């Protein structure tokens, strides 16, 4: 049996507790998966199996739900997730150029996160801050009125974290 590291054990305990709360209740799969992803950062196969077993839902159905919703990820995500808003308002304010500048700076493309890079860059639909377009979303934080000139400092600060 593989020896489990402490944080991993903690995560599994948290998952166990979360699943106990949902067990036997109808319509809780999405909520359970959201909580699992919060605990692990993504949804590895072993977690999906655990969820399926505990909630007595076929694994195929769990997978089908996970693949349907863009919020869920089955692969580990980069330490810093940058999302460039390509909604109409941001687009009009030059979000596309901003995206290219950002990719140049990080050496990655949308969706592709270079394995060793601490940054992943994706695009998103309107995040509801059109008044401050163009927007770059980093984790839960929104950064408004973004310009190419502001990018290097922003990345530097993230790297320091």
């Amino acid at each position, binding site marked *: 049996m593989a020896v489990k590291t402490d944080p991993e054990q903690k995560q599994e305990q948290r998952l166990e507790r979360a699943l106990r709360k949902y067990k036997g209740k109808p319509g809780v799969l999405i909520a359970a998966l959201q909580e699992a992803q919060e605990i692990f950062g993504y949804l590895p196969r072993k977690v999906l199996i655990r969820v399926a077993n505990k909630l007595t839902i076929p694994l195929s159905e769990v997978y089908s739900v996970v693949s349907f919703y863009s919020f869920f990820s089955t692969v580990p995500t980069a330490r810093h997730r940058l999302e460039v808003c390509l909604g*109409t308002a941001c687009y009009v304010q030059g979000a596309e150029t901003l995206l290219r500048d950002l990719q140049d700076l990080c050496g990655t493309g949308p969706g592709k996160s270079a394995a060793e890079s601490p940054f992943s860059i994706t695009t998103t639909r309107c995040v*509801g801050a059109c*008044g401050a377009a163009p927007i770059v979303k980093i984790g839960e934080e929104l950064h408004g009125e973004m310009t190419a000139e502001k990018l290097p400092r922003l990345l530097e600060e993230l790297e320091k974290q």
Partner: protein
Amino acid sequence: MSTLVKELARERVRPETDHRLLVCGGIPCRSKGCREVKEALCDELQKRGIAGGIPVEVVGCIGDCSLGPALIVYPEGIIYQKLAPEDARTIVREHLIEGRIVEPLLHRDPRSSEILRQREAMPFYRGQTRLVLRNCGVISAHIDDYLKYRGYAALALALAEMSPQEVIGEVRSSGLRGRGGGGFPTGRKWALAREAPGDEKFVICNADEGDPGAFMDRNILEGDPHSVIEGMIIAGYATGAARGYIYVRAEYPMAVHRCREAITQARRKKLLGENILETGFSFDLEIRTGAGAFVCGEETALISSLHGTRGDPEPRPPFPAQKGLWGKPTLINNVETLANIPLIILHGAARFTELGPKGSPGTKVFALAGKVRHTGLVEVPLGTTLRRVIFDIGGGIPGDKEFKAAQTGGPRGGAWARSRSTGPWTTTACAKPARSSARGGSS
């Protein structure tokens, strides 16, 4: 001015004479650093030893996001704009301590160079009819503030003096149509849900708002969640439902947070739960978050998602009002639709129909964005022309360029060329050349 607007204006007369600071915490202001502004404000108040006496509250979007980060100082109602943390310290020293308004931080009309101190003086707000947004950015999202402004008075009135049928009748005569895009008459939908056989029924608030450029619902939930909750409880009473769900986009963590707090506060005041206001009526609410799928804004897909499965749309009929969540009759309404309900019950359908065109009464909230001077949340009577929104409220296009085209949101939105911009917006005109824009993204 319609009587409803006048009545609301009277309610606004503030009994308070004390200083109170409202920092805008809406998304655009947050993305421009309003948190740092608030920290500087609190820090300076502390340093000057007056932190105890002057409350600092974070409110939802004040309205004109192009002037963010923004701060309102009561009791004068002075609005300061485009603040840096250092400016916040200046305001504490000069305005709060020395009693001198800090003129350089006020908004100056770019055309007349006139200094505008209060919201009411700015064309952006003056041109609007803020009913649904009446509390947004003006009071905090806390229930105590909401109660001060006749919050939950409509619920009390409905429970104490109206039968469910009378409530539905009032909503029906108001002519209110769904603001979620379909434009279905709300009263009729409520009647369908009431008449559908079943011992268990549900009310769902659709807060999945997925249209690009649309952030009206988010701002209502962040700025005034209790108005939506009050609308839902009234809907529960009218249709005979005892449970409700607010289905919010996962991308709206702040809205989720504010709704959670609001639900807890309402439960504590016995406005949610068993035996509400001791009338024997019981109703409770839960929040569910989406997981990033545009189609879940469509009502049958949303219900699939609430079942915990893929958000696949189902063919209609049967409609959710007949067979919805867990196969039970389910009333599903949009955030803004529900936020209109307390107004209609409290002030009466007759007042409501004074606004907007016949057949499509009331107001509509729009999110104004793109190449206009003032961007943000705008509420106008339905039937208002796009040109009026862009020029009189939005202040026109930077550099006074000519207006070429605009895009309006929603499943029935579309592009508007200049020639069509003088036609009115309604929720029903969709089949006609001037398209509906019941969903209000505009960019």
